[in-house]
C-alpha cells in the first residue's frame, strides 16, 4: 500500500483540516453540578468542521442514519452560514435534532460509514447536527411544519418517548387528530426519566417536544394504558381509528442473587428516575436520593455510565464510584465517549468481576458486594468470549450504595389486557419491521417495545415507518 502510494504523482495538496474537538467542561468542575458536560460547537468550529465534508455523491452517511437525514445537504448549508436553513433541512426527517445530536451513537451510524473516515477521523456529523439545532432554538427560529387539512381520523399514540413523539408529529402533519397517552407526569419517555441532565438538558427535550403541542396534539398524562383504559376501549368506545404503541422497555432487570433486596440497592431506573424525573438533585424538590461513600454500579452499558456519573455528582467528590462488569474492557457495551467521560470523572472500573451476593448490616443496609473474578473463555452465541468464574477468587468490594444496570424489558399492562396482541417470550410486541403492524388490526408498534432497549434514533426510525403505514391504513379504511 505504502509503496503504491509513493509511486503515484503527488496530488495537489490541500491542507487537511483535522476533526474539530468538542469543547467540554473540565472534569473537576463538571462533577460538582448537573449542567451539561459538552458545551457545543461555536459558529467558527462549526464552519471549520463543515468544510471537512466532501459532499460525496454516494454519501454513505445518509444510509447509515436510521432516519435518512440529508447529511451533505445540511452540512452544505452550514458551510454557507445558513444555520437555520440547515436545521430546517434536518427537520424534514428528524424532529428532535438537538436531542439526537447529543445522544445518538454516530460512531456506529453515519460517522462510521463517512468516506472521510477512510483516511482520517470522520466528519463530526452529530456535533454539527447539535450545533444547528441549538442555533435554531436559541434564535427562536423554530418553524412549525405545514399541516394538511383535517382528515377526520383519530389516532391514539400510547407512550411519549422518541417513537411516540415521532409518530404524533408525522400524523399531525398529515391532518389526523392525535391524542398522546402517557403514564408518567411528563412527556419524553427515557429522554426525561433516564438520560441525565448533564448529557441531555431537560429544557431542550421540552423545547423540541413543544412542537407537537403547538401542532395541536391532545396530551393526556397520567394515563397508564392497560390500567386506566385498555387498547380495546380506545378503539371501540373512544373512537380511535388506529393506535400506535411506543411504550418502551421500562421494566428493570435484577441479578437475582442473595441480598439483592437490601436497602441501598436500586435499579438504575429507580436511581435515575429519582434524580432526573423527580429532580432529587435540586433542593426544592422533595423526592430523596441517597448516595453513600462507596457506590457500586453493576453493568457497563450507557445506562450504567449515566448512573455512575450521576452518583458521583449526587455523592460529591469524596464519593468513590465503581463499575462492576463481568466481561473485559473492550466488551463494554457503552459508547466509547461515555466510558471516556466516566474515566475522566474518576469512575473506577472493576472488570472481569461478577457479583455473587450482597451483604448487609443489622439494619438491612447493604455494606459489601461479594464478587468473583472472571476470565474469558470460548466465544458464546453473541460472538463475545464468554466470561467464566475463576474458582476461589471470591473477594469483597465494600459498597453502601449499589445500582443495578442490567437492562430492561417491556412491561405487560397492554399485553395482558389485549389478548390479540402477540408478544415474544421477552414481552416485546411482534410487529413488522417495515410498517410496525402488530397482530391486531389497526394497532401499530415501534421503538423499544418491539426491539427491546435500543436507541433514540432507532425508536424514531420505527416511528416514521409506522406513521407512514398508519397513513396508508387510514387512507384505505
Amino acid at each position, binding site marked *: 500500500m505504502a509503496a503504491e502510494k509513493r509511486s503515484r504523482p503527488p496530488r495537489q495538496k490541500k491542507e487537511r483540516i483535522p476533526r474539530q474537538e468538542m469543547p467540554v467542561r473540565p472534569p473537576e468542575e463538571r462533577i460538582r453540578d448537573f449542567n451539561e458536560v459538552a458545551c457545543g460547537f461555536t459558529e467558527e468550529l462549526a464552519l471549520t468542521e463543515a468544510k471537512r465534508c466532501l459532499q460525496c455523491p454516494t454519501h454513505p452517511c445518509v444510509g447509515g442514519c436510521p432516519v435518512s437525514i440529508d447529511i451533505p445537504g445540511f452540512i452544505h448549508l452550514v458551510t454557507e452560514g445558513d444555520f437555520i436553513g440547515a436545521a430546517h433541512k434536518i427537520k424534514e426527517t428528524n424532529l428532535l435534532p438537538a436531542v439526537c445530536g447529543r445522544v445518538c451513537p454516530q460512531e456506529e451510524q453515519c460517522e462510521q460509514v463517512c468516506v472521510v473516515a477512510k483516511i482520517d477521523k470522520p466528519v463530526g456529523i452529530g456535533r454539527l447536527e447539535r450545533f444547528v439545532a441549538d442555533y435554531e432554538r436559541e434564535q427562536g427560529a423554530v418553524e412549525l411544519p405545514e399541516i394538511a387539512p383535517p382528515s377526520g381520523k383519530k389516532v391514539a399514540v400510547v407512550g411519549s418517548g422518541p417513537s411516540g413523539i415521532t409518530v404524533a408529529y408525522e400524523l399531525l402533519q398529515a391532518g389526523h387528530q392525535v391524542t398522546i397517552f402517557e403514564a408518567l407526569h411528563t412527556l419524553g419517555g427515557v429522554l426525561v*426519566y433516564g438520560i441525565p441532565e448533564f448529557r441531555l438538558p431537560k429544557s431542550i427535550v421540552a423545547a423540541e417536544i413543544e412542537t407537537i403541542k403547538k401542532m395541536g396534539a391532545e396530551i393526556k398524562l*397520567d394515563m397508564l394504558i392497560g*390500567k386506566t*383504559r385498555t387498547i380495546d376501549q380506545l378503539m371501540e368506545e373512544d373512537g380511535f381509528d388506529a393506535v400506535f404503541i411506543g411504550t418502551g422497555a*421500562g*421494566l428493570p432487570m435484577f441479578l437475582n442473587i442473595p441480598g439483592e*433486596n437490601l436497602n441501598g440497592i436500586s*435499579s438504575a431506573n429507580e436511581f435515575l428516575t429519582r434524580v432526573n424525573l423527580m429532580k432529587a438533585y435540586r433542593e426544592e424538590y422533595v423526592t430523596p436520593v*441517597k448516595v453513600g461513600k462507596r457506590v457500586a454500579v453493576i453493568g457497563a452499558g450507557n445506562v450504567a455510565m449515566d448512573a455512575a456519573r450521576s452518583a458521583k455528582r449526587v455523592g460529591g467528590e469524596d464519593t468513590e464510584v465503581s463499575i462492576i462488569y463481568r466481561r473485559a474492557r473492550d466488551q463494554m457495551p457503552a459508547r466509547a465517549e461515555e466510558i471516556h467521560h466516566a474515566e475522566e470523572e474518576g469512575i473506577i472500573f472493576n472488570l472481569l468481576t461478577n457479583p455473587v451476593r450482597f451483604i448487609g448490616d443489622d439494619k438491612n443496609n447493604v455494606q459489601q458486594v461479594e464478587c468473583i473474578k472472571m476470565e474469558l473463555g470460548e466465544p458464546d452465541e453473541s460472538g463475545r468470549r464468554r466470561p467464566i468464574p475463576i474458582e476461589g477468587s471470591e473477594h469483597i468490594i465494600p459498597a453502601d450504595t449499589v445500582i443495578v444496570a442490567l437492562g430492561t424489558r417491556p412491561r405487560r399492562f397492554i399485553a395482558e389486557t389485549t389478548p390479540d396482541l402477540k408478544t415474544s417470550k421477552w414481552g416485546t410486541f411482534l410487529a413488522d419491521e417495515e410498517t410496525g403492524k402488530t397482530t391486531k388490526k389497526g394497532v401499530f408498534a415501534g421503538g423499544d417495545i418491539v426491539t427491546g432497549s435500543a436507541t433514540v434514533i432507532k425508536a424514531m426510525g420505527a416511528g416514521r415507518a409506522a406513521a407512514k403505514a398508519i397513513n396508508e391504513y387510514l387512507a384505505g379504511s
Partner: protein
Amino acid sequence: MYKIVKKKVLAPKITRFTVEAPEVARARKPGQFVVIRAEETGERVPLTIVDSDSEKGTIDVIVQEAGFSTHDICCFQEGDAFLDVLGPLGKPTHIENFGTVVCIGGGVGIAVLYPIAKGLKEAGNTVITINGARNKELVILEEELEKVSDELIITTDDGSYGIKGFGSTVLQGLIDEGRKIDFVVAIGPTIMMKVVAEVTRPYKIPTIASLNAIMIDGTGMCGVCRVTVGDEVKFACVDGPEFDAHLVNFDEQIAKHHYYDHEQACQMEKIIAAAEQERS
C-alpha cells in the same frame, strides 16, 4: 389537574379527600390505588382508593400525615387541585365467597380495608371486622364499616374505646373460641400484619396482607417497591399490593421503611423551621 371537591378531617392527622378523576373512577376496582403528585416539587405518593363514584367521576382517598409529603397533601383545601392522579394501579382484590372472613385493620389501614370488606360482603361472605386504633380519637370509618360487617369489633391500644389491646389478640380469641374462619385480610402497619400472619399460620387460614411499600412511579418501572414473597421477588405496584401474608418477608419491608428516615426528618425540620419563621 384533579380538583378536590371535598375535604374532611376524620381524626387528627387523618384526612379524607374526594377528588375529580373520572378516568380512574370509571376503571377502579376494590384494592387498587392511585399515585398522587400534589404539586410540581412533590413526591409521587401511593394512596388506596377508598371509594369511587363513576357517575360523578370522583374517587376518595384517605391520607395520614406520616411524613413530609403526606403533610403537604393534607395542606390542600377544597377547590384546590392535585397536579397528577394516576391509576387505578395494582391488582384488584380477589373477591369471592370464602364463607367467613375476618378483615383486620390498624390505623389508616382501615381506609384500605373498607372497600375490600364492602366487596367481600357484597360477594356473600360473613364479614367480621376488627378495627384497631391507638386511641378513640383515631378510630375512623366506624359507621361505614358497621354497614358492611356482620360483626364489628373495635380495639384501642389504650382502651379509650372498644376493647383494650391489639386486633391480633382479638383474632386469636376468635380462633380459640373455635369460630370457623375461612379467610383473613390484614391491612395496617407492617408490624401488625406480620403479627396477624403469625396468628393464622398455625391454623393454615389463608391470609392476605396489603403492603404499603415505598413507591415512585407505581407502574413497574423503578423496582423500589420490591418485596420478597416466598422465594420470589415481586413488585408491589404491579403484582400487589396484596400478597399471601404467610410468604411475605415483613422484616425486609420494615427495614425498607426506615431507609429514608434521615431524609424525612430533614424535610420535616424544614417545614417546622418555615412555620416558626412565619410565626415570628
